[in-house]
C-alpha cells in the first residue's frame, strides 16, 4: 500500500550573542572551554537569582522571525517548562509557550518538484541546558555535569508537517540553516551543536487528508543523522502498517553510532511540563518601530538570492547554490559579474568556483581572506578572454597575483607573458620544431598521427607556453599537411 510520508521539523539554533540569554556570562564554545568556568549564580540556578533578558538575543530572534515572514507579537510571554534533569539547574527551562514571539511564517525551498512553501508554525526564544557526560569506569557508572552551556540563548523554529520526503526535509533544514547564518543569528556549526534537529514523522495512506500517528525523533545533530533517522522511521512505520498494526506515539532518540533509534522513556513522564507564565519576567515588548528597523536591515535572503542568481546570471542551480552559500561569496560574485567589469557571468562563475575556490580550500580561509578584489580578478578574466594570455598562463598569473598582490596586467607585462598570436612568429616556431625533429616527422608522415600532439607540446615549450594554442594548431596542421604532399 502506498504511503505518503509526512514530516515536520523542529530546529533549535544557538544564537550568536556574546552573553547568555538571561545572565551576563560569556557564551563560550562548550567543546573548548574548561568546564564550569563560564557560570554565575543565575545560570547555576542558585537560590534567590532572577533572569534578565539579553537584548541582542531578541534582536537576532526578530531577524529570523521577520526573514521567515512571521507575524511578530507586540507582546509575548516567557513561560516555565518544569522538569527534573541534572543539566537543567533551575529544574525548569525558561521558554515561551502560549504567547510566543512569532507565528505563521514561511520558508520557500527549491526541490526536485520545483519551489515549495514550508509553513512555519512558530518561532520562540528559550535557554539551552548544560552538558551531561556519561562515564563508565569499570563497574562504576555515573554522569558529570558542565553548566557552561546552560543559559545560552536558543531560538526554536517549528515547521508545520509540510515536508513530504527525506530530500525535502534535508532541503528545508539546509535552507533554514542558510537563513540563520545569512541574517547573522547563528553560526550554523552543526559539529559544535549550534543547530540541532528534531523530526516528527508519520505516514498516511496516499490521498488521505488526515494525519497519522507521529513519532518524534530527537538528538539529530547532523544532516546525515536526520536523513538516516527519518528513513529508518519510515521503514519501521511502513512495516508496522503493512502488517496491520498501529503506530504508537512515542519519543525516540537517535543513536548515530549504531544507526538506530532508542526509546526515551526517561523523559516520557515529563510530558506534563506544567507550563505557566514566568513570573520573574514581564511580557516582552517588541514595538512596530523595532520590527520595522530590523525588517529594513535584513540582507538578501539565501532562497531569493539563489533564484536571482539563476535568472539574472543564467547559471545552473548547482553553481548558483555554491555561489550563494554564504553572503561574502555572493557579494563578491555580484561585484565580479557587474556590467562595468565586462566579463560574462558564466566565465566569472567558472573562475570563482574553479581556481579561486581551489586556492581557498588549500589555504583554508574564507572569502574574507582572499587577497584579490573582484576588479582585479575581472581584469585577469578579460585578458584571458581577449586572447592576451592563454588559459594555462592565466592560471599561473592568478597564482602569482594571489601570492604577490600585484595586478594581472602588471604581472603579464613584467614577465612578458603575453600570448603570442603572431602568425609569422608561430610559423617560424613550428618550422623550427619540425626541422629539429626529423625522426619524429618521418614517423608522423609514415602514419603515426598522434605525434601531432607531441609536436604541439614541443612548439608550446619552445614558445615558453605563451603561444596561442589555436594558432599553433592551425599552423602545425598546415605545415604538416604541406609536408605530406
Amino acid at each position: 500500500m502506498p504511503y505518503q510520508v509526512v514530516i515536520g521539523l523542529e530546529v533549535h539554533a544557538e544564537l550568536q550573542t556574546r552573553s547568555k540569554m538571561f545572565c551576563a556570562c560569556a557564551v563560550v564554545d562548550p567543546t573548548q572551554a574548561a568546564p564550569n568556568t563560564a557560570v554565575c549564580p543565575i545560570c547555576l540556578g542558585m537560590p534567590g537569582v532572577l533572569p534578565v533578558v539579553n537584548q541582542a538575543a531578541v534582536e537576532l530572534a526578530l531577524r529570523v522571525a521577520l526573514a521567515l515572514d512571521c507575524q511578530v507579537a507586540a507582546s509575548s510571554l516567557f513561560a516555565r517548562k518544569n522538569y527534573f534533569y541534572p543539566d537543567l539547574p533551575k529544574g525548569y527551562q525558561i521558554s515561551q509557550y502560549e504567547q510566543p514571539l512569532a507565528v505563521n511564517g514561511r520558508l520557500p525551498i527549491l526541490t526536485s518538484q520545483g519551489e515549495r512553501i514550508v509553513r512555519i508554525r512558530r518561532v520562540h526564544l528559550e535557554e539551552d541546558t548544560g552538558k551531561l557526560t556519561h562515564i563508565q569506569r569499570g563497574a562504576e557508572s555515573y554522569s558529570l555535569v558542565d553548566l557552561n552551556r546552560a543559559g545560552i540563548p536558543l531560538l526554536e523554529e517549528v515547521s508545520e508537517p509540510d515536508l513530504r520526503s527525506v530530500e525535502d526535509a534535508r532541503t528545508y533544514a539546509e535552507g533554514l540553516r542558510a537563513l540563520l547564518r545569512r541574517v547573522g543569528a547563528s553560526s550554523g556549526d552543526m559539529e559544535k551543536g549550534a543547530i540541532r534537529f528534531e523530526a516528527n514523522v508519520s505516514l498516511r495512506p496516499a490521498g488521505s487528508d488526515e494525519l497519522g500517528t507521529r513519532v518524534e525523533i530527537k538528538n539529530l545533530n547532523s544532516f546525515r543523522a536526520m536523513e538516516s533517522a527519518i528513513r529508518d522511521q519510515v521503514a519501521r512505520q511502513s512495516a508496522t502498517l503493512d502488517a496491520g498494526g498501529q503506530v504508537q506515539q512515542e519519543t525516540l532518540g537517535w543513536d548515530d553510532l549504531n544507526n538506530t533509534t532508542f526509546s526515551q522513556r526517561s523523559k516520557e513522564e515529563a510530558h506534563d511540563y506544567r507550563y505557566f507564565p514566568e513570573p520573574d519576567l514581564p511580557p516582552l515588548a517588541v514595538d512596530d518601530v523595532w520590527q520595522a528597523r530590523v525588517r529594513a536591515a535584513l540582507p538578501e535572503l539565501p532562497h531569493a538570492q539563489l533564484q536571482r542568481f539563476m535568472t539574472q546570471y543564467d547559471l545552473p542551480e548547482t553553481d548558483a547554490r555554491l555561489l550563494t552559500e554564504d553572503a561574502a561569496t555572493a557579494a563578491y560574485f555580484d561585484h565580479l559579474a557587474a556590467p562595468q567589469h565586462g566579463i560574462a557571468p558564466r566565465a566569472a562563475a567558472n573562475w570563482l568556483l574553479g581556481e579561486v575556490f581551489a586556492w581557498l580550500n588549500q589555504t583554508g580561509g574564507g572569502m574574507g581572506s582572499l587577497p584579490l578584489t573582484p576588479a582585479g580578478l575581472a581584469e585577469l578574466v578579460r585578458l584571458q578572454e581577449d586572447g592576451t594570455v592563454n588559459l594555462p598562463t592565466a592560471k599561473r598569473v592568478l597564482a602569482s597575483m594571489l601570492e604577490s598582490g600585484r595586478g594581472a596586467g602588471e604581472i603579464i607585462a613584467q614577465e612578458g607573458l603575453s600570448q603570442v598570436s603572431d602568425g609569422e612568429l608561430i610559423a617560424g616556431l613550428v618550422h623550427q620544431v619540425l626541422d629539429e625533429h626529423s625522426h619524429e616527422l618521418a614517423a608522423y608522415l609514415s602514419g603515426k598521427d598522434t605525434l601531432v600532439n607531441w609536436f604541439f607540446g614541443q612548439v608550446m615549450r619552445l614558445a615558453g607556453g605563451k603561444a596561442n594554442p589555436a594558432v599553433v594548431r592551425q599552423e602545425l596542421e598546415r605545415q604538416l599537411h604541406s609536408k605530406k604532399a
Partner: protein
Amino acid sequence: MLCDLPAHELTRLLKARQVSALEILEDSLKRIDQVDGRPGTLTPGEITAEDQCKVHAFITLTAERARAQAQAVDDKIAAGEDPGALAGAPVTIKDIFTVAGVPSTAASRILANFIAPYSATPVVRMEQAGALVLGKVNLDEFTYGSSTESSAFQPSTRNPWNTERVPGGSSGGSAAAVAAGEGALSLGTDTAGSIRQPAAFCGVVGMKPTYGRVSRYGLIAFGSSLDCPGPLARNVRDAAQMLQVIAGRDRRDSTSANRPVEDYLAGLEGGVKGLRIGLSPDYFRITFPDPANGEYIQQPLPQEIEAAVLRAAQVYASLGAEIVEDVPMPNTRYGIPAYFVISRVEAASNLHRYDGVKYGYRTPKPQTDLRQLYRASRAEGFGRQPKLRILMGMYVSAAQYSAQYYQRALRVRTLIRSDFEQAFDSANPRRIDLLLTPTTPTTAFPMGAVYGDSVLMQYADQLTVPANHAGTPGLSIPAGLAADGLPLGIQLLGADFSEALLLRAARAYEAATASQPSEGYKKK
C-alpha cells in the same frame, strides 16, 4: 540602652560623634546574649525550660562581620566622610535573603550549609548605607507558615512579650528581634501578610511595599508574583528611612518597578487633614465556607480587635481625616483560596532547583540511580510544609487541572485587585485615600496551636493576603495591648506606590497615641 533607641536616633548620635558604631554594636550583642538563648539548629535536642523563656530569633549570628562593618563606619566618620543614611543601625536579615559568605538557609535542612557567593540587593543597599548586619534570623521554612514554628532550625522563635506565644510568621524572627531590641531594624518578606502579621503580634511596625518597589534579587523565592521584601522597625520614621534605602529599580530584577522613589521622610509629619480614610465591613469579619454545606458564613472578629480599629478611626477623625464607612471589598473572601493555588504553583516550581546536585543537601545514603537521589534528598531535606506546598502546586498546575485551578485563580486575582482599584479610583464619588483595617483576627496565639481547628487562625491571612494579590502596599502599626497583654496591630492599605501616604498616616497615628510597644519587653 542604645539597643532600644530608634535607628534614626542612633545615626544622629553617631554622626554627632556622641557614640561610636562599635559601642552600638557591642550593646546590641549584649542584648542578644541576654535574651536570645541558643540559636536555632538542625539538632536542637530537647527544648529545655530555659529555652522556653528565650526569644531564639537567630539562626546565624555574624558578630565578627558586624564588627568589621562598625569599624568601617567609625573610620568614615573619623575621616569626615558621609557614613550613610542607616549608619550604625544594627539590623537583622530574615534568613530567606542571601548574604555573601554567610549561610543562607531559608530555615531549611536542604540549604543548611549553603554559603551564597552574593548578597541580596536590599542587603547590599542597607550595608552601603552603613547598617551593621547582626545576623540571619529565623522564619517558617521557605516562608511557608504564620508562626515560624515550621523552621527546621529549632528552638524556633518566641514572642518577646510572652514566650509561650508565637511571634507570628513567616518573618517571626525579624519581628521578635526588633521587639526585643536585638537590632533596630529587620529586613523581612511579605507574601500573604508575613511582615504585617508578625509585626502586629510583636507590637512593631511592619510594611509590605508595592510589588516591585523593592528588588527581589537575592530573595530565595516562594511566590514570585507575590513576594515583597520590606522593613520592620519599632517606629514609623525608622521604617520610612529603611524603605528609602532599599527601594528603587534594580537591573538584576526585571520585575522591579521602573519608577522613581519618592522622599518618604519629607512629608512624614504632614498629618492626615483632609485625607479620606475608609472602613470596610469585609475586613471586620472572616468569610468562609461552612464545612457542612459549603455555603459562605461570616464570623465577626473579636470585639477587641474591632474596637482597636474603631478607636484608631476616631483618632484619625480627630486629626482632621474624613472617615468613609461601608467601603465594599466584596472579593476579600476569595483571597485565601486564590492564594493557595497561585502561590503553590509558583512555589512548587521554585523548589525544583533543590535537587542535591549543585548545592544544598544531598542524601548521604549511597545512590545508584539519579531519580532515587532526587527523591531521597528532597524527602530528607524538606520539612512537612514545603512538601505539602510542592504537592499541591504540582496538582493544580497539572495540564488537566490547570484551567480549573490555576487559570481560574488568576482571574479571581483580577477581581480582588479590582476591589482596590475601585476603592482608590478618583472617579469614584466614594473614593478613599487609604483603607483602615485590623491586621489579624487574633493576637499572638500559643506555640503549637496553629495547626488546630480555629477558624480565626485558619483564615487569619484573609485580611492581609488581598494586598499581595493586588500588588498594593500596606503596613501594620502597633495599636496598644489587648486584654491578654499581647500587642494589637492595625493595618493601613493604599493604592499602588502610595507608601509615602501610608507612612505619613501611620506617623500621625503614632504621634497622636505615642504608643511604646517596647515597654512590654521591659516589663520582663
